């Protein structure tokens, strides 16, 4: 039955139209209706995304659930959708996270509730659009549009410096996107198409490739974010409301990484190969330099934001070590391990960073402070919550048995094949990640009750418990049994590697 439904379109438009419906509930008098509708819409969207997983054919690398309609004929722009083993898990991650974010905002958001909920629903649809678009123009439209609700979320429900943070976020991301647009238009003139799959086979000489690669790099590096274009992220996170931080960390950062897989590597394989050292160095800087920066943060959200940058360094590292593995060992063995590890890291980071920001949110809602120094001994008054926090912290530190381990493990194994020292430097995250995460846990949760505010804390409400418990199951589930996820992405990654192994020159 589901084969006949345009599943991807449904996934994109259900939350967007649902969001419009929520907007219609109007003022905060009808806040409850707005919340109930939002939750329903997000749950329905999540339910719609499950057949995507269930009916996915894991034997093939071709696009599935495809749809095609003409859009702007004169420029050969089409409304083309489809998913493969890379984008499908990310869509499920998006629908999953949105449900949690709606729940997380339930009591916390007090004014303009309908608008808040609608922003997240619309954002959900647009992000799914990014992940499923197979037409570069369509991709670009979704890519740009999705930022707008996020600006609004930070700008309206954000903290005191929200204007600075929003403008910084806007400047960075807008600057990046413009270059991408130029690259897309250039390729349109070369190949007379915006179809991403056709662009994959578009002949380009090395100079063209390098320029296109760099244009994409600016767009994607900002989003990931990679060092040195990362400084918008800590500010954006600090000012964003909890839900905004969760979506930002769990989904939006993945869009940049997704861009590398969908555009940079397949369209400009030779440029990727030539510039891989630069990408590896930038990734390692993210892992190590940012790890040290995270160590000295006093603001919990900033710490987690830096930790995100550091973890995303593993993702980009996993993508770009593949060429060096080939140079070093003469075979592509182990390359898939790196890319698959990076994708697992993306999914896992979605769970963990979401969980970490929600944890901070739980504390912030009670004490209105993000400063580590304001806390101490929280475990005494919130033991159940402390249990979750330690679990997520350990996962953030890459403990085996949790999802945080899987991706890092695979990327380090793979990096070793490229070069001992790359693996060596990447593996320092074992120490750094544990240091900054557990040091924070020590100062916030352990010790005697630090002050009266901590003494008055109440443990988790049922709603908070439910959210964190769902995430805990996800984190442990992926850590104990990652096989299904790997099965989904295997053929797609193999196909991608075969493609980029072929020089376009």
């Amino acid at each position: 039955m589901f084969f006949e439904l345009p599943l991807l379109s449904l996934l994109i438009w259900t939350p967007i139209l649902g969001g419009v419906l929520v907007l219609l509930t109007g003022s905060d008098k009808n806040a409850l209706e707005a919340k109930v509708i939002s939750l329903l819409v997000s749950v329905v969207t999540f339910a719609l995304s499950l057949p995507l997983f269930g009916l996915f054919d894991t034997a093939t690398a071709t696009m599935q659930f495809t749809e095609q309609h003409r859009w702007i004929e004169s420029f050969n722009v089409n409304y083309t959708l489809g998913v493969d083993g890379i984008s499908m898990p990310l869509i499920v991650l998006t629908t999953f996270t949105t449900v949690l974010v709606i729940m997380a905002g339930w009591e916390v958001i007090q004014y303009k509730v309908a608008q808040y909920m609608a922003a997240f629903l619309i954002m959900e649809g647009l992000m799914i659009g990014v992940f499923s678009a197979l037409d570069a123009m369509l991709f670009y439209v979704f890519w740009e549009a999705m930022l707008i609700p996020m600006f609004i979320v930070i700008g309206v429900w954000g903290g005191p410096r929200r204007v600075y943070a929003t403008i910084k976020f806007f400047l960075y991301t807008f600057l990046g996107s413009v270059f991408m647009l130029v690259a897309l238009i250039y390729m349109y003139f070369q190949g007379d198409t915006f179809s991403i799959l056709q662009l994959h086979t578009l002949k380009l000489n090395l100079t063209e490739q390098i320029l296109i690669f760099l244009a994409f790099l600016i767009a994607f590096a900002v989003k990931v974010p990679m060092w040195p274009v990362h400084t918008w992220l800590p500010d954006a996170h600090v000012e964003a409301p909890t839900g905004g931080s969760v979506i930002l960390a769990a989904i939006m950062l993945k869009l940049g990484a997704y861009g590398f897989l969908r555009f940079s590597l397949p369209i400009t394989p030779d440029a990727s190969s030539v510039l891989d050292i630069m990408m590896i160095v930038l990734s390692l800087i993210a892992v190590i330099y940012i790890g040290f920066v995270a160590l000295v943060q006093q603001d919990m959200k900033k710490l987690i934001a830096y930790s995100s940058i550091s973890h995303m360094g593993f993702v980009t590292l996993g993508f770009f070590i593949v060429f060096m593995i080939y140079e070093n060992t003469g075979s592509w063995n182990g390359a898939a391990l790196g890319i698959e590890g990076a994708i697992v890291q993306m999914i896992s980071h979605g769970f963990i960073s979401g969980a970490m920001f929600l944890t901070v949110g739980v504390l912030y809602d009670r004490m209105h402070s993000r400063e580590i120094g304001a806390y101490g001994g929280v475990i005494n008054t919130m033991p159940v919550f402390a249990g979750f926090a330690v679990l997520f912290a350990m996962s953030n530190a890459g403990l085996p048995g949790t999802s945080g381990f899987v991706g890092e493990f695979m990327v380090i194994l793979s990096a070793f094949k490229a070069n001992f020292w790359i693996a060596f430097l990447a593996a320092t995250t074992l120490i750094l990640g544990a240091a900054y995460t557990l040091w924070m846990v020590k100062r916030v949760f352990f010790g005697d009750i630090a002050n009266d505010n901590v003494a008055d804390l109440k443990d988790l409400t049922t709603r908070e418990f439910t959210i964190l418990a769902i995430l805990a199951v996800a984190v442990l589930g992926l850590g104990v049994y990652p096989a299904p996820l790997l099965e989904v992405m295997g053929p797609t990654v193999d196909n991608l590697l075969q493609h980029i192994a072929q020089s376009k020159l």
Partner: protein
Amino acid sequence: MHDIYLTIVLAPLIGAVIAGLFGKAIGRTATHRITILAMAISTILSAYVFKYMTVDGNETYNATVYTWMVADGIRFEIGFLIDSLSSMMMVVVTSVSLMVHIYTIGYMHEDDGYQRFFSYISLFTFSMLMLVMSNNFMQLFFGWEAVGLVSYLLIGFWYKRPTAIYANLKAFLVNRVGDFGFLLGIAAVLMYFNSLDYADVFKAAPLMKDMAVEVIPGQTWSLMTMIGILLFIGAMGKSAQVPLHVWLPDSMEGPTPISALIHAATMVTAGIFMVARMSPLYELSETALSIIIVIGAITALFMGLLGIVQNDIKRVVAYSTLSQLGYMTVALGASAYAAGVFHLMTHAFFKALLFLAAGSVIIGMHHEQDMRKMGGLKKYMPVTYWTMLIGTLALIGLPGFAGFFSKDAIIEAVHYSEIAGSGFAYFSVLAGVFITAFYSFRLFFMVFHGKERMDEHTRSHIHESPWVVTLPLIALAIPSVIIGAVYVGPMLFGDFFSDSILVSSEHDVLAKVGQGFTSWGGFILHGLQGPAVYLALGGAATAWYFYMKRPDIPGMFKQRLSIIYRVLENKYGFDDFNEKVFAGGSRKLGGFFWRVGDEKIIDGIIVNGTAQSVGWLASVLRHLQSGYLYHYAFAMIVGLMMMLLLFIV
């Protein structure tokens, strides 16, 4: 058999989950009953497996439980490898764990975290079993880190104490330094063997003997040396070898039962077990073996010396553990893997006994751990006294007791070893015997004999511990006496480990030690001809002279040799160095990257510079627009959606 193995592992896990999630709901008694029952099942089945493997002599069992994932054509699996080595480890782990579970009823009965504690120790047992039963490197690493996690949770069990939560963070981070090397070692194995399965790797290893790698350009190393060293770095962290030993003394901040279980009997021996398990790899690199023997010798000698100046009863035992782990490591370096593992087993029993006895003393003394405030406890705590005496005699290696057989075998093996560094190691282990006996009896005399130095209030409340405490002491005292005599023949000189430990003939020092071995009695007679026994007796006698006969002498030494004393008291300065250089340095570096790199350079110059110029531009264009950002934004979205919808429909 598959189901039995699965039950052995899962029973403690189920116990841990029940105690952890529902402990508060079902209450204290139900919690300890359930976890102890689960542990008992696991222990009995382990004993059965031990018999099945070693007495009945069944074939090694190697099978997959489930496929964790398949990536890039490599299968990552969870599976069991059960042979004599793992079945022996299973018996040691489950039986000590069972004793500790029972002991905990008495030791922790006043603690609010009673159920949580049971949950942790059961979880630990699960993790440790996963580690020793693994048939591949990935699961080994899984167990390796999981025991580290539980150790972290248990050291910080009393989370209100600043010292405890400092110690657990330190323990986790130092272990992570070891794991860092360990993980790279695993990556190296995967790269060159294209498999993480023990059987595949061990089979292919001899073919790789002469393979060279270039880690630093221009310098070629043997592949096996590199793998061996990297994996051994992991062992140094977990088994607390210098310089990664710094976490173990501090780990004594945790409750005593776990000091016995985790930080003496089982977890800290994981590194020893791992190297023995990897013997087919280590046999191919003499360089790696040399490094192991030297590190082990340093640990055995210098950590023993620190035991002399400690006044906290648990810390004395902790330094003795460090020193004994050094002995085991020396044995590994001398290719006497069986002797190292044999010492691991005897040590597990007598050191668990010593810790639990120390814990019994601590209960009796109302949580006083300073030996200077003890003395004369013999008459108050007879069971503790006698069992502790047995443990002490086993530790110093009095002929006939368990520790004698294993320690003497190590000393003899090192004597025969020709590997670089074995001369120094031989000196260290011999000197260590004297030192061990000295600090052990120093503890013994200070606690149980001499003047009663506690205050009147404490003295009036001293009593022997309840049966749940003394029963495990007695139960552990039995193997501390007999297990050496029973297993010295088969484990060291028989073919007990022939299915699991591989020693190349040119390294086989145990064969030389075993020449002329007839029975355990003969081994004792042979031992009496060597220096070790007399060094041990000398150490004990010196302790008696110093602390019973002439108690003024230690004070005199302290004054005369104040420099040496201070060096020992500062633990050779490792802690200060780490705190200043690594911890302080990292914070400084982080601060520099943040304040200068991120804020001054990237934000200050590049971003805000751009923002200012954009701001200027915006001020020119400002009259074109007015209103709020989100008004425009919503208009944009609605417009986009209309466009899209129009074209689709």
